[in-house]
């Protein structure tokens, strides 16, 4: 892994009403810390929503009350959101194919669009799944946001008399 890493972990109850919160937190972290255009933040929001929706569904099926874990980590070149559930897992290679959109049968498929959407919206997806759960890693290739220039703090203003003594 290149560069320095930092991680922020969020645990959400595995309930539908918390997906919006996950989107909000992850997009806020990404937009404040990374050099990502607004439309890429929108892409990430949809991908996070899809991954969290799948995780919550996995917990419902497994009848577990464990929280869903969302870990944002970053390096110089990438921002990664890992969504971890404790469900029963699945084989990513066995996802059902949808009929083509021109096929009237296509209307019988109201679900299963999440993973294809994720794959298109983010720069990389890694899925690890076993009987103990699934981790979906959403990878955005981007640099850090421009930080404040250190020179900004080299100011020449005068400190008022007594200000330094004010602190206990």
């Amino acid at each position, binding site marked *: 892994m290149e560069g320095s890493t930092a991680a922020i972990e969020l645990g959400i109850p595995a309930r539908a009403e918390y997906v919006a919160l996950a989107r909000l937190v992850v997009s806020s972290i990404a937009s404040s810390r990374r050099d990502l255009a607004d*439309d890429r933040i929108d892409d990430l929001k949809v991908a996070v929503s899809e991954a969290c929706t799948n995780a919550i569904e996995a917990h419902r099926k497994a009848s577990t009350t464990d929280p869903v874990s969302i870990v944002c980590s970053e390096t110089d070149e990438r921002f990664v959101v890992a969504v971890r559930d404790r469900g029963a897992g699945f084989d990513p290679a066995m996802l059902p194919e949808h009929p083509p959109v021109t096929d009237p049968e296509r209307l019988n498929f*109201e679900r299963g669009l999440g993973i294809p959407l994720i794959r298109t919206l983010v720069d990389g997806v890694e899925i690890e799944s076993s009987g103990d759960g699934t981790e979906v890693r959403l990878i955005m290739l981007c640099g850090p946001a421009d930080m404040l220039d250190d020179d900004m703090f080299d100011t020449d203003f005068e400190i008022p008399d007594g200000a330094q003594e004010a602190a206990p």
Partner: protein
Amino acid sequence: MDLDLDVTEKNGVAVLAVKGEVDVYTAPRLREKLVELVTQGKHRIVVDLEGVEFLDSTGLGVLVGGLKRVRSHNGDLGLVCTQHRILKVFEITGLTKVFSIHDTVDEAVA
């Protein structure tokens, strides 16, 4: 998180204006409203998505379900959407070829 659903009628078409975020939490309310309209005999429906701030695959699924429902009554369900970020999820999933998507409600009910 709020989802506002407002139904009006124009040219004999039920226009369902959706405002807010459509995801796994709010999509069931959109589904219920579409089912309610079809149950009331409204088989020509336009869903106005101009007030939608977020829509993911759960929302897409509900709209596909609504389209299927009205088509089984020889009806139709059109969409109004000009927002790039919302249109993008329709484009990626190929659903721009399934729905008729219009720029304005007037165009959709014409």
